[in-house]
């Protein structure tokens, strides 16, 4: 059970080494002759570059606290998916070539030669780790097996051994600006279609701007939000919210991808893709960047961006033009998460909301690995959901917040060919969802990550058929009372609203909409 190997043309597009077409089912992986040397040299380089890596290789005491915490171990039952044993695959090679005991005593010291079998095993299990970091929460030494997987993938990458599901989007993002290689005119067409849908729903015509110089804010979201249902409803939610606020913002067809699959290949590639967003912010002369609902995009921003490309001091510290709140936490990256932005709007009473429009939904919330464990965003999405929905239920302790279970498909292997593997990894999450479904009739699983929206839809279709999946801003859009809107007959998905028919104004719960910001939006 694995994904197809990366193709030469995708590797070549970004100048990755040892590009070739190869097939994991074949005996011969067409490796370069000196592959061991390349691998070990790469390891040596990283051991001296990343102190954490050397530490993680050295300090594990095999206490086993992490062993049963990985969703892939829980779902597959394969002991090599215990984080401690996953790391051991590389640690044994480390011992053999980089420690005295391993060099002298070999197997006795838990060391292994780096042969073809070991290499294939490393590859196989590096792509059964979604780099979710759940195990690290339980390790008394703070060993982060995700970081080890990241290094293993980097080393494999030196040998051209990536997977196409990751490399295709990397190449497309690098060449065209987004994961599917959508060209600018197509992207604009897709937005026009979404705006038509919004007009049908609300009677309001929205004309967003693209690549507009001088806008105050650049908005960047994962492209999954505009090419994949149900992400598209969330994307329409952003469009409606920004229109209602009169926000002076622009989309970009160049920085059209918040997701960063480069992060699943190497730090260097992640840095290159991340820099596009900042190059575009500079070119357009915006003041700051607002980012959509995404998972790993935020891990990259919060944990790595500053080291790679920061500080972004040509931008201003993000400040909400509606409430005046300054997002101090984004002082260095100058990029703010939309859930913080929206929570702040609601806190200041800047949105008119009618939560009854979500009364057909009983909602639970899935904490995405990245926004929770890499950022600590726990309260904002819950606050927003509770402000726009009347029925919210938490999943059980041990499955939420920093202990949340991965969707099972993160870190770039949301492919079709490894579907069973994804469903195995998705079981612990789905099992907790089933619990709230059975107990409270929950019928909607909210989240703030584009990969979740795609992956959980599939996982729920298998494990909990009938369970919907939604982004939080779709729920916001359902509840949002827009100035001059016609009476809503349906929710964002076109389903009839299950609520008493009244004029929305009479029920308006909050303050008047904010003043419209300066106009002058240019369409491409």
């Amino acid at each position, binding site marked *: *059970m*694995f*994904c*197809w*190997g*990366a*193709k030469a043309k*995708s590797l070549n*597009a970004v100048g990755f080494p040892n590009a070739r077409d*190869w*097939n*994991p*089912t*074949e005996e011969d992986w067409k490796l370069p002759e000196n592959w061991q040397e390349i691998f070990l040299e790469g390891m040596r380089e990283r051991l001296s570059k990343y102190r954490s890596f050397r530490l993680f290789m050295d300090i594990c005491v095999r206490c086993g606290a992490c*062993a*049963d915490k990985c969703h892939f171990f*829980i*779902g597959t*039952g*394969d*002991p090599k998916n215990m984080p401690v044993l996953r790391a051991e695959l590389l640690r044994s090679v480390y011992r053999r070539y980089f420690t005295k005991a391993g060099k002298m005593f070999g197997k006795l010291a838990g060391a292994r030669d780096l042969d073809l079998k070991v290499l*294939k095993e490393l590859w*196989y299990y590096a792509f059964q780790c979604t780099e979710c970091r759940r195990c690290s929460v339980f390790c008394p030494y703070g060993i982060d097996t995700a970081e080890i997987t990241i290094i293993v993938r980097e080393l494999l990458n030196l040998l051209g051994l990536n997977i*196409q*599901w990751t*490399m*295709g*989007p990397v*190449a*497309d993002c690098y*060449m*065209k600006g987004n994961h*599917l*290689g*959508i*060209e600018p*005119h*197509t992207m604009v*067409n*897709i937005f026009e279609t979404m705006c038509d849908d919004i007009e049908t729903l609300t009677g309001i015509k929205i004309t967003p701007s693209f690549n507009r110089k001088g806008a105050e804010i650049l908005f960047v979201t994962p492209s999954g939000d505009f*090419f*994949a*249902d149900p992400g*598209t409803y969330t994307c329409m939610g952003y469009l409606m919210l920004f229109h209602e606020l009169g926000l002076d913002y622009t989309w970009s067809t160049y920085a059209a991808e918040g997701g960063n699959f480069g992060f699943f290949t190497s730090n260097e590639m992640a840095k290159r893709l991340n820099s596009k967003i900042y190059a575009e912010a500079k070119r357009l002369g915006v003041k700051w960047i607002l980012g959509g609902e995404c998972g790993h995009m935020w891990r990259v921003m919060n944990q790595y961006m500053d080291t790679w490309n920061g500080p972004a001091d040509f931008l201003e510290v993000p400040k909400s033009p509606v409430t005046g709140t300054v997002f101090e936490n984004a002082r260095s990256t100058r990029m703010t998460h939309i859930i913080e932005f929206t929570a702040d709007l609601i806190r200041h009473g800047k949105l008119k909301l009618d939560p009854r429009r979500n009364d057909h939904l009983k909602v639970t919330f899935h904490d995405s690995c990245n926004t929770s464990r890499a950022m600590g965003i726990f309260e904002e999405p819950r606050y927003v959901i509770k402000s726009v929905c009347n029925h919210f239920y938490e999943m059980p302790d*041990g*499955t939420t917040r920093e202990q949340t279970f991965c969707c099972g498909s993160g870190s770039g292997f949301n*492919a*079709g*060919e490894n*579907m*069973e593997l994804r*469903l*195995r990894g998705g*079981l*612990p999450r789905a*099992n907790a969802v089933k619990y709230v479904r059975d107990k409270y009739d929950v019928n909607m699983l909210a989240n703030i990550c584009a990969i979740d929206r*795609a992956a959980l*839809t599939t996982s729920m*279709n*298998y494990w909990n058929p009938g369970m919907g999946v939604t982004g939080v801003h779709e729920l916001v859009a359902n509840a949002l009372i827009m100035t001059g809107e016609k009476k809503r007959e349906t929710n964002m998905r076109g389903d009839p609203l299950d609520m008493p028919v009244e004029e929305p104004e009479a029920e308006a719960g909050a303050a008047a909409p904010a003043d419209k910001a300066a106009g002058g939006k240019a369409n491409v």
Partner: protein
Amino acid sequence: MDLKSFLLEKRTSVLERWLGDVLSSYPSQTAEFIRNRKNQFANPVGNIISEGISGIFDGLLAGLEADAQPDAGVMADFLEDIIKVRAIQDFSASQALGFIFSLKKAVRDEVGALGEGGEGLHKELGRLDGSIDRLALAAFDVYSQCRERIYELKANEVRNQTYRILQQANLICGTNPAETGKGGGNGDSPEKKIG
């Protein structure tokens, strides 16, 4: 004592034997975890299997009443829960479903432990075996439904994930073969393990 009363009395022990047999299909470290970690959220597989086999066992016992037919409806949910898990794990069809037949062995071992005293019960075993066989047939249906579902998911996902682009048909210009669901492979099944 009739078979039903006997099995009711020995319920815990039979279920232990049966569980042991189901778990023998997993590596020992895993089996230990599945058996001993009691939290249903930390150990969903263990919970689903234990609850499932108990539910099925009770359903079968109810079916041993003089005129009763085993209530397939009650057992179907438990059966489905277990098979859904086994259908996506690394098992062939026969391995995934073999656990149903191992109940026969668990019951026989328990009856056998009575020695000669258990002879009367042996006569009743045929009826239980018949119910287990019917259950196994139902399990094949569930299993194939699960597998079909997986293929549907594979097909639908590609379509759903590119919905807006399909709306704009012929305008896409990408270099990513992943969107067709297949990258560098040559058509072999990716389900084979490498080695």
